[in-house]
């Protein structure tokens, strides 16, 4: 019996080892390509300066859509940052999705809202009734829609889409702060190639711990919480390098719902956001890719490797768990819905590269990780574990993870250098190591739970999470690291890190 168990465990171990080597190789290739592109981009972007884009009469207008549910903690900062955009023509559409707190009152007070008749531009189906529409009388291009909530962010997004006027729409989370030139940076590909570019995203970073004032990030800093620091590394790896690599391969699968720019006509054409998806931003990108590929229409999803948006990330394990389960559940839904695209050359690099990668390493990754860990424990329990070999293997796995994280921090330091303090830099490096010990394993467990929910077709549930808003310059002493932010719920599936 012991012999059978030992040989079974050996088989499992070899399978897990092979899987991990394959995953690490893929990640190294992805990160290497991403790093190459980011560094090249810093030397010469090859594109027009932002001043010219700003001044060009060909630059299209943008409708910024912000669905909000109980966001009183940070909504005014989010709106301040969005309204302070340096962009020739834009409007903000905020959707009060059944807020039970003072979100609407705060906005109504600050922008002196007055009720108006809605001006519909599309007829996308929505479930939550629109209660009223308001407009700012302060001269700001702000429209606020109050609607009954149905517990789905996509429904609020679709209402906003129904009222967007401009040719481009920007999806923005209500707990995110835009850089002043965010719209200019990400709209540039649309200005340069208006017929082919259908979607674009940029780099999103964790804002927790940073000094902000009226929506402006004055000084990016790391939170003092290790959980947040690890997520800061995750975000850097995912956005700075992962997505840049995918975009280079023309296989962008995700444009973050925290900040993403799309052509409005195409969004309306595909019926808006999927009302039942928990990863509606990724779902939207894949749906667009599928739709345009099927029709043989040329299209490009672009990733601009420049920081454009700062968002809150969870600060506690319980909130992180909810968020990651939801992402994993959403990913499972997405892969099931678009299963015909997986491995299908008709859908180009998305079908042949990106979707199989997400199926193998993102969706099934937690299964392999948890099984691998269980087999080690079991082997130790029956005395079949070669401690020396196991130690070397674990050390090797840790080192691969550390190399990936260190490359990311190095690229950040050599390019954008947003974290000025040496202490923050050291903390980032340390977080990159610590991520592999404990965080990664717990994360795998959360993702496994999310995957299980997707497989068993559980009803998707959007849960509102508490926020405390952004740490203001006035509130945060110069030497304080982290007072900001409590966990964010609506950091979208798009932020799913590219590595397990």
């Amino acid at each position, binding site marked *: 019996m012991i012999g059978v168990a030992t040989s079974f465990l050996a088989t499992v171990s070899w399978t897990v080892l092979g899987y991990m080597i394959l995953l690490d190789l893929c990640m190294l290739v992805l990160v290497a390509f991403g790093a190459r592109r980011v560094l090249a981009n810093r030397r010469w972007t090859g594109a027009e300066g932002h001043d010219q884009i700003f001044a060009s009469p060909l630059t299209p207008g943008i409708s910024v859509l912000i669905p909000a549910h109980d966001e009183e903690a940070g909504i005014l900062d989010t709106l301040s940052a969005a309204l302070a955009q340096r962009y020739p023509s834009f409007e903000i559409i905020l959707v009060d999705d059944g807020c039970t707190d003072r979100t609407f009152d705060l906005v109504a007070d600050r922008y*002196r809202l007055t009720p108006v008749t809605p001006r*519909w531009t*599309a007829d996308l189906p929505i479930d939550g009734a629109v209660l009223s529409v308001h407009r700012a*009388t302060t001269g700001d291009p702000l429209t606020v829609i109050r609607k009954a909530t149905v517990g789905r962010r996509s429904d609020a997004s679709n209402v906003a889409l129904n009222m967007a006027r401009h040719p481009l729409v920007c999806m923005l989370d209500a707990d995110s702060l835009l850089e002043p030139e965010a719209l200019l940076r990400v709209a540039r590909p649309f200005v340069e190639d*208006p017929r082919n570019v259908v979607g674009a995203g940029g780099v999103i970073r964790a804002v927790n711990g940073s000094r902000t004032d009226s929506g402006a990030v004055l000084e990016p800093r790391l939170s003092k919480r290790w959980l947040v620091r690890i997520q800061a590394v995750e975000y850097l790896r995912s956005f700075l390098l992962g997505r840049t690599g995918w975009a280079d391969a023309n296989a962008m699968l995700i444009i973050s719902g925290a900040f993403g720019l799309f052509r409005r006509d195409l969004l309306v054409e595909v019926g808006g956001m999927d009302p039942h998806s928990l990863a509606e931003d990724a779902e939207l990108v894949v749906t667009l890719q599928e739709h345009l590929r099927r029709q043989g229409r040329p299209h490009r999803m672009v990733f601009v490797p420049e920081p454009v948006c700062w968002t809150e990330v969870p600060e506690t394990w319980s909130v992180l768990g909810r968020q990651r389960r939801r992402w994993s559940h959403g990913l499972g839904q997405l892969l099931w819905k678009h299963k015909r695209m997986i491995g299908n050359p008709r859908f180009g690099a998305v079908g042949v590269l990106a979707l199989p990668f997400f199926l193998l390493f993102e969706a099934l990754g937690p299964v392999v990780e948890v099984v691998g860990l269980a087999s080690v424990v079991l082997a130790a329990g029956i005395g079949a574990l*070669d401690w*020396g070999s196991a130690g070397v293997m674990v*050390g090797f796995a840790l080192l691969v993870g550390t190399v990936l994280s260190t490359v990311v921090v190095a690229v950040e330091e050599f390019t954008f*250098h947003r974290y000025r303090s040496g202490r923050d*830099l050291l903390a980032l490096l340390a977080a990159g190591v610590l991520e592999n010990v404990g965080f990664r394993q717990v994360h795998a467990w959360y993702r496994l739970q999310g995957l299980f929910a997707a497989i068993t077709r559980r009803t998707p549930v959007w849960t509102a999470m508490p926020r405390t808003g952004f740490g203001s310059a006035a509130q945060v002493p110069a030497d304080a690291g982290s007072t900001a932010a409590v966990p964010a719920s609506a950091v979208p599936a798009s932020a799913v890190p590219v590595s397990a």
Partner: protein
Amino acid sequence: MTPPAQAAAVGSLVLSGLVVLLLVAVALEHLLRTRRLAREAARRAELTPLVHALLDGESTAELAGAPALLDELVLDLLPQLRGADRSALQAVLLERGVVGRAADQLTARGAARRGRAALLLGNAASAEHTTPLVHLLSDRTAEVRSAAARALGKTGDPAAVGPLLAAVASRQGVPPGVVGMALLDLGTGVLPALRTALDAGRPVTQALAADLIGVHGDPAATDALIALVGDPGRDPDVRRSAAQALGRIGSPVATATLAAALRGSGERPLRGAAAEALGRIGDPAALDPLTAGLRSADADVRGACADALTLFGEPGRLRLAAHAVLCGPSGDAARSALDVLEFTRRPGRHAARA
């Protein structure tokens, strides 16, 4: 230890070395950056008065021996300047051999070098380098092609118009938006070529030509644009761009064609663009088709018609008011437009109410 574990141990050693190297590089970069930036700032502070003196027309004997950082300063300033100031800085670049070196770099192996050289020649408005820049429009690297196109726009040489338009439609071409910005930089001299392009080449070129003609508001292209809008066999994007251009030109000659496009069964963007154009033209003959458009099944078209009616002054307002009493989507569209009208007329009243 098993063979795989031995291999992993060797791999671990290699990876450890890599991590150490990266850490050292990060630390050095972090430590040296501050010093480097401070040094550069000090040098810039020294050189900036020299550039200002040059712009003030003062003697600039020291410029000859100034370090290469001066060229960067001048290149940073160039896009922001016009007229004599711009010419003075361009002359400095020429004297210091920067333009000549850039011209040599146009055939460099690295894409970044070629691209930067192209941009520099554009900023230096070096019309004598039009031919090599035109060659770069078919460069193997997309970014270099775009840089060459933008540079051609800045050189101000009308000879670049033909190659630029051709580059839009070529297989390994330049995105239309980039060519559009370049052609706008070239000014009104490009209009004859754009008029010709309306009826030649591929739809992408035709649509771009129509867009640019609209931005220039060229009345000489009205007939050609009317023909495009009225031809259902044309590409929908081309017809939409032509309709938008007609609106910007503002000639009532186009009213009948645009009204027909609004009433027709064409694609939604075309009908929306036709409504918007009719509003811009403001011909009273468009009141009826726009009022009828309020009953369109498409929300975007309804909204565009309502917005267009607000541009007609009192007659448009009366039409909207008549519809505003109705229930349903057309009433909503009319009420919404009246709200905007009211809002624009008396913003103070709304603010007080709020």
